[in-house]
């Protein structure tokens, strides 16, 4: 049943994903169209960042808070934004919901975030079969790339371009981010080309993720690390037999899922008009 039949037209539905690294907001209309979105560095005050990020998204959508019919929070800070919404879902469920909306088929979602990775498997009906998060170690996450960029004295945003320039690849052997940094320093000392080292870092990220779980169906890659380093997706395509897709906004699928849950909840509670 269309949401509009429940009198939800002109109402907005907010998904707020307060991640360890970045906060993301997506605003949807009753037809599940994205009207606005925003991303901010999360920082230390989850509530304030979410508040501002919501304002950014509302500004982009050209509407105000009164138009928000329902909101759902997700991510590490999901319980810290009670002034916006007390409804929270884990990022596992929200990524699953967001990705299935975009690719309605059986899939394995690979989400590479700032401080954790997730592998989520969905069946053809969108039901979650299983999920896994990385273990305690942050190897293979955005934090790994941040640390390596620091060691290489490179701005994060240059990594993708450098990896594309690589003529070869320097493979890293260690699980540990700190030991990897030592390896990288050794390669620099040996005069290896920086682009080859950066490509090796990307390979390390993909290997850490692929060893977490097996893959079923098509692979959908999401997360801020994928959004800012699309070369990762190109490399994954070469390594994975399954078809690999990525959404238009890989960083926003969690917030999108949260907004869809908000719309679902409003659809269930709105009286017929």
């Amino acid at each position, binding site marked *: 049943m269309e949401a509009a039949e429940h009198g939800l037209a002109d109402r907005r539905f907010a998904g707020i994903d307060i991640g360890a690294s970045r906060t993301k907001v997506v605003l949807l209309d009753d037809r599940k169209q994205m009207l606005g979105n925003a991303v901010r560095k999360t920082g230390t005050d989850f509530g304030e960042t979410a508040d501002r990020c919501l304002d950014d998204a509302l500004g982009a959508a050209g509407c105000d808070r009164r138009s928000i019919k329902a909101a759902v929070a997700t991510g590490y800070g999901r319980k810290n934004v009670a002034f916006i919404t007390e409804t929270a*879902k*884990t990022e596992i469920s929200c990524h699953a919901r967001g990705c299935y909306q975009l690719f309605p088929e059986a899939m394995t979602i690979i989400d590479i975030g700032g401080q954790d990775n997730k592998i989520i498997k969905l069946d053809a009906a969108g039901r979650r079969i299983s999920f896994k998060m990385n*273990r305690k170690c942050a190897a293979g996450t955005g934090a790994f790339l941040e640390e390596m960029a620091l060691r290489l004295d490179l701005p994060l945003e240059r990594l993708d371009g450098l990896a594309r320039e690589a003529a070869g690849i320097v493979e890293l052997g260690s699980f540990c981010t700190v030991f990897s940094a030592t390896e990288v320093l050794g390669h620099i000392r040996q005069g290896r080309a920086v682009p080859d080292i950066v490509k090796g870092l990307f390979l390390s990220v993909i290997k850490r993720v692929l060893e977490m779980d097996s893959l079923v169906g098509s692979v959908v890659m999401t997360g801020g690390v994928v959004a800012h380093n699309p070369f990762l997706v190109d490399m994954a395509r070469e390594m994975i037999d399954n078809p690999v897709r990525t959404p238009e906004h890989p960083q926003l699928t969690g917030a999108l899922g949260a907004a869809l849950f908000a719309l679902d909840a409003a659809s269930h509670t709105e009286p017929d008009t």
Partner: protein
Amino acid sequence: MAEDKTPPRLKSAAEMGRIMAEYFKELDAAAKDGSRKIAWCTSVGPAELLQALGFLVYYPENHGAMLGATRMATDMIPAANAIGYSPDICSYLTADIGSYLNKKTPLTKAFGMAGPPKPDVLVFNTNQCRDVQDWFAWYAREFDAPLLGVYTHRNIGDIEPHQVGDIARQIENLVEPLEEIAGRKLDMADLRRAVGLSRQCSDLWKAVLDTAAHKPSPITFFDGTIHMGPAVCLRGTEAAVDYYQKALLPELEERMANDVAAVPGERFRLYWDGMPIWGRLRDHSKMFADLRTNVLSSTYCNSWIFTALDPDDPFGGMAKAYTELFIVRSDAAKEAYIQRMLDFFKVDGVIYHDAKTCPNNSNCRYGMPQRLETATGIPSLTINGDLNDLRLVSDEQNKTNVEAFVEQLEEGR
């Protein structure tokens, strides 16, 4: 008014506290005045034989768990690491030895004891793991006390007579050196009595845990980890039998009769495999209760059920009981066991705890969760952590994992 999700407390806890205090008081007094010999024993070691020879029995693993539950362990472990006991080995061992080195123990606050009672003998059974042998060996050197042991069989499928016979002989071979230390001869009537009481305790403990099959369950796994104290430390005594028979079991039966749920509004029923995370018992109890989900049964608590104990065949019965233990069985036998448990307790999902320092009791490392999911269709979640070393526990990761798992169960309904 918001629904109260706080799990109701079991009233029997006060009585359990009393008998455990009596147990430690007796140990402390004997250590001070030398009136009774003290034996240190592994948690599934030949405790009944020691009791029959008049020893008071002290269990270092219980002390390890106390160090964990009081969250002292993480501060004690580094002292053991520094003398060569790796942070990767059993954190009961490292916490306990660290506690000794630091001269700090939860026994002081709980029972006014300066430390564990000095042993006259240490007796292990490697059925728990090889670490117990190294653990006891350290104290044997420290106290210059005799060290005796039973060496288990491992990866056991069906129990074979030769395995039981071998363990029975090993236990019988302990008698002579133990008699010498005890200064008295073994009276078989005393051994039969201790084994009989231990069997009664075991049967009652099983009845306690089986109440979790009721919907809603009157007990949680977290309750079980606390109320197993007498089954571990006082089996073979009348105090343990009385506690379960007269206090805990009747209280749980009353809850069942009145449909009183240990987790109010119980929606999902989970099984826990592996060690508890001792320093997070209360947090986990609340976290699951908030999700109206009851972790109601576990391999861990059920590992102190010894139905093979037989007063008419004390050595054979002990050998069989301590050999059919889950922890020494093959993966196929373990999987068959867990399947029976999931069926009996009407379980919706399984949580495997991958405890970093306890490979012997982390059953998720060789594909078991995947095989059991395929066989039963019951979903599972593996969480990473540790029994005692909280440096290895990520609360945020665990919380998100558990909430996401419950959301998955909701979607499946």
